[in-house]
């Protein structure tokens, strides 16, 4: 009897890698060449310029940390990225939570709204916010009409506009991974907490939040990292007096032709981004498994 139910020997053999494993490296060649020539080499060349142009030395790094203009750009960058991350978590957590418990049809509707917003062209979304937030825009006009304000609020060309626009763009990147985590939780765990006498607040704080933490942390980290290096939305909604790091790099290259300083700023941005990416890899593994 046991002989019949034992696993078929072929099935075990199929799991072993075939003999052609050593040929794997050959298939990497085209993509590796592209990555080397059009990614690693140019980025390395840019970073090298930060210590060689116009003369050898660390003067550009000294300039970056020694001038109030550049320190303010760094401050703006971290401030906006932090605020956007916090707001995205505060709004995104309830939305992801609701999506995980709603009946299928409604959850799908919410998901479709998120995806529509995420898939809409980035410039279109930013343009929409520029129109909505401008002095004569719908938001200011409505507030004026209702008598809540006496003169139009300055909502664009400052960090308020950048934060609103960036939160809009980043929200799906927080909700989607978090929704995946919450959806995978077993509701009976929370029923168990209730049976054991936990209040709603205790169940939320001691059970739900810790269980959601991996999804929440990886989503928040992704939003923070993406926000740090964002270029388009800050450039259009922020204006030149409230610059962020990515915009500074672009401007140093495009209008000031200061390649050395641009390289130094790029290294700072890159180091922070890749450092956080490495942390994420360490804590949560590669992105390919999650959703």
């Amino acid at each position, binding site marked *: 009897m046991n002989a019949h139910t034992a696993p078929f020997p072929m099935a075990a053999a199929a799991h072993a890698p075939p003999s052609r494993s050593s040929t794997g490296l050959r298939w990497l060649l085209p993509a590796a060449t592209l990555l080397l020539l059009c990614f690693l080499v140019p980025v390395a060349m840019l970073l090298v310029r930060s210590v060689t142009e116009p003369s050898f030395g660390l003067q550009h790094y000294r300039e970056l940390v020694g001038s109030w203009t550049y320190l303010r750009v760094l401050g703006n960058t971290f401030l906006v990225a932090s605020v956007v991350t916090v707001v995205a978590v505060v709004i995104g957590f309830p939305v992801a939570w609701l999506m995980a418990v709603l009946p299928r049809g409604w959850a799908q509707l919410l998901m479709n709204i998120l995806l529509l917003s995420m898939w809409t062209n980035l410039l279109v979304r930013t343009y929409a916010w520029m129109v909505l937030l401008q002095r004569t825009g719908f938001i200011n006009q409505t507030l004026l009409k209702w008598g809540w304000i006496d003169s139009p609020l300055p909502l664009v060309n400052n960090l308020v506009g950048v934060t609103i626009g960036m939160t*809009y763009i980043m929200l799906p990147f927080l909700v989607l991974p978090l929704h995946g985590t919450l959806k995978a939780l077993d509701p009976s765990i929370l029923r168990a907490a209730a049976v054991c006498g936990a209040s709603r607040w205790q169940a939320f704080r001691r059970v739900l939040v810790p269980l959601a933490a991996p999804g929440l942390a990886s989503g928040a980290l992704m939003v923070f990292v993406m926000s740090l290096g964002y270029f388009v939305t800050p450039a259009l909604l922020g204006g030149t007096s409230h610059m962020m790091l990515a915009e500074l790099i672009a401007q140093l290259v495009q209008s000031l032709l200061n390649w050395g300083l641009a390289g130094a700023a790029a290294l700072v941005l890159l180091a922070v981004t890749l450092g956080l990416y490495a942390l994420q890899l360490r804590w949560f593994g590669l992105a390919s498994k999650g959703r």
Partner: protein
Amino acid sequence: MLLDFDRMGRPLRATLVGIATLTSLFLLAPIVFIVALSFGSSQWLIFPPPGWTLQWYRDLFADPGWLEATWASVRIGLLVMVLSVVLGFLTALALVRGSFPGRAALKALFLTPMVMPVVVLAVALYAMFLKLGLTGTLFGFVVGHLVIALPFSIITIGNALEGFDFSLEDAARICGASEWTVKWRVTLPSLRLGLGAAAVFSFLVSWDEVVVSIFMATPGVETLPVRIWAALRQDLSPVIAAASALLIGFTLLMMLLAAALKKRNR
């Protein structure tokens, strides 16, 4: 209880539904507004518009610059799509099936362009292509977009490969199929969903890409996003609203298409 919609309690349920409703409005508002304003007669984009018009669409189609930029975007997008799927397939195959030292590190390296700030890549490529005289060429755009799109392809196809039962290949070999036939008639057809998703993603990455494109563009050679970017830097003309509305329509069409494909494959 907290994960049961019917038994989570009325106050909590009301709070969650309230926040989600407001968030949905927040997410939909800009999209609805732009579509409405593109038909509005107000030059200053006043809402609600004083009247309705197709003027902005007429202006859009009367300007050959917009059409040329769209055509350039389509060509670049299709090239990026094909190259990204082919390279992504080979790379994913090696990363999923191969066994060689440093595989995990290589995988992380191949996915790096996805997490890197695009502006750094854009500036770096711009510096190199400026020296090589490649800015303003189709090649420059395609290569820049390809570097960004490739990780998406590798992930999507890699996931499909992980779900593929490779003993099917062995079965085909045992039945006498040549190595080429095995790949062409067995492996690729089973992966068509993953390959299709990678193709759509890659096209969309290229189609939406702004930052690298701004640096690659020269007067006369630009993609649709570069054209919108340049127009936005001047004023908030309603012609941009018309172009935006068409792009939103395109997005909706792609989503419906994706939903239909998913349904058919279930």
